[in-house]
């Protein structure tokens, strides 16, 4: 019960903050759409609607939306911890009986839901605008993304840990942004090492759902093994790294200093 109430409290806070600062989120979305539209019209002008480009346009549309969502989810984790440390509220979160890890997971679950909604929203607007039609199998997409995003929270936690100890997270986030772009445009997951990168397999599965019309049942157990395994792996790595940083901060008294 206690865990449920703390989860609800985290939901409330996210909602309140969103309600009060929705304007920022809307501006972000508008900028996103403007960039998308300019790239799209530019590409159309060059390619004159040939078939091959139409194919890759689909990929671009999905990849770009995924990148936007992934970027948000990852930097949200890192930024919010570092931000709470700076404000001094992180210390309060550490003083509850409820373990901080639970609060963190609650927050990630909430962010996941929000970002998936945003993903659906922008995908639909993009389809409307471009006339490209994709398979919107909501359940399959939702479940794949829900699991897949946790690999990015793992990375977010590593960044948060670095932020706590070294106080430098903005520049790192900038760099990760480009790594994520890389992940979104890597063409295939055939190479074994590429599969192990965070989120590449999720992207691969989302592409299969949206472009080839695959459903959850269409994936093999190997697909699920990669999807779940990679998320678990990166989340575990992230938590471990964060734990190390947290122990350092508790020793140096830096949880409340930034």
């Amino acid at each position, binding site marked *: *019960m*206690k*865990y449920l*109430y*703390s989860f*609800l*409290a*985290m939901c*409330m*806070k996210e909602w*309140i*903050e969103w309600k*009060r*600062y929705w304007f920022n989120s809307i501006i972000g979305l508008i900028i996103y759409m403007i960039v998308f539209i300019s790239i799209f019209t530019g590409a159309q002008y060059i390619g004159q609607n040939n078939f091959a480009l139409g194919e890759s346009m689909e990929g671009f549309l999905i990849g770009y939306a995924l990148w936007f969502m992934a970027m948000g989810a990852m930097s949200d984790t890192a930024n919010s911890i570092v931000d709470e440390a700076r*404000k*001094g*509220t992180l*210390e*309060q*979160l*550490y*003083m*509850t*009986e*409820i*373990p901080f890890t639970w*609060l963190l997971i609650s927050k990630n679950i909430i962010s996941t839901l929000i970002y998936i909604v945003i993903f659906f929203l922008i995908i639909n607007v993009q389809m409307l605008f471009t006339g490209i039609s994709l398979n919107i199998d909501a359940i399959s997409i939702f479940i794949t993304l829900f699991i897949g995003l946790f690999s990015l929270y793992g990375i977010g936690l590593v960044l948060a840990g670095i932020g706590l100890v070294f106080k430098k997270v903005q520049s790192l986030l900038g760099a990760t942004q480009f790594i994520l772009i890389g992940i979104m445009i890597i063409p295939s997951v055939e190479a074994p090492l590429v599969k192990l990168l965070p989120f590449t397999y999720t992207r691969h599965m989302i592409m299969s759902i949206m472009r080839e019309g695959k459903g959850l049942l269409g994936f093999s157990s190997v697909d699920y093994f990669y999807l779940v395994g990679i998320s678990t792996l990166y989340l575990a790595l992230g938590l471990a790294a964060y734990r190390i940083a947290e*122990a350092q901060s*508790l*020793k*140096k*008294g830096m*949880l*409340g200093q930034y």
Partner: protein
Amino acid sequence: MTEILRLEGLTKLYKGKEGLKRAVDNVSFTVNKGEIFGLLGPNGAGKTSTIKCICGLLKFEEGEIFIKDNSIKENRSKGLRHISAVLEGNRNIYWRMTVSENLNFFAGINGLSKRSIANRMAYLLEAFQLTEERNKIVNHLSRGMKQKVAIAISLITDKDIILLDEPTLGLDVGMSQEMRIILRKIAKEEGKTILLSTHDMKVVEETCDRLVIINKGKVVAYDTMENLKKLFNQLIYRIVLDKNLTPKARSELKHYINSDINEEEVELRLSLQSPNELFGILSLLQQEALGLLALDRLNMSFEEIFMNLIREAEGDEISI
């Protein structure tokens, strides 16, 4: 009196440029249920570090902290069940949320439902005179108001022990006074145990039952407010002579002398147990043919006693 919090030889080291720094050095004290306990010390004394160790926000190198007999080292979360805290400068609240949103949020993450705290919230808003402000965004409140909100939040979860780091810092005279009244009220009406840190003598004087004075991480004094106030009522006399003390007078007055006297000085400060001791002293001065230019009684403020204790601990000569 039941003991609720105990520190045993608490030692906190920070790694600095000049090696390890003992920010808290072998500090021991106990706090009893229902009392207001003061942690007094100048800047950098180690007050915040001590409080953070108690809250489990700072790992310490040596010693032990027991909260209701639970060792913080062995079972942090069991100890934390009884504690809430407001750390330096009311930074523990979300400035972008309203007063009641903050109260609800902190109750929630501590596992309490909105419904279960509704009455307590109303009580606290009333007690802190925040009812009218409850739907205002914290950022728009004055500093004193923010501080009140921060303390109200620490009370919403109804824990037994409240730790307050500098609760009156930066408040004006009126607000500081109001805060002291609120603190006494909480301790009395709700039976809460309050441990507060401050370098403001007035706060301890008016609110604390017992206190520990620390300086440079070390305990300098640990006693009841009453006993420390006795020090306060010490009889200190200032005597000004027309010439320097003779060697005989100096040796006989030695144990009364409360300050540094160098060869040149003709002004003495004597600390006496009873005014009757003045008879002997004055006749001695007369025998030694020393003339009296002035004699008056000095009032020592708590602040001066405090400074004295600190100087004493640092091994300097005492002077008033």
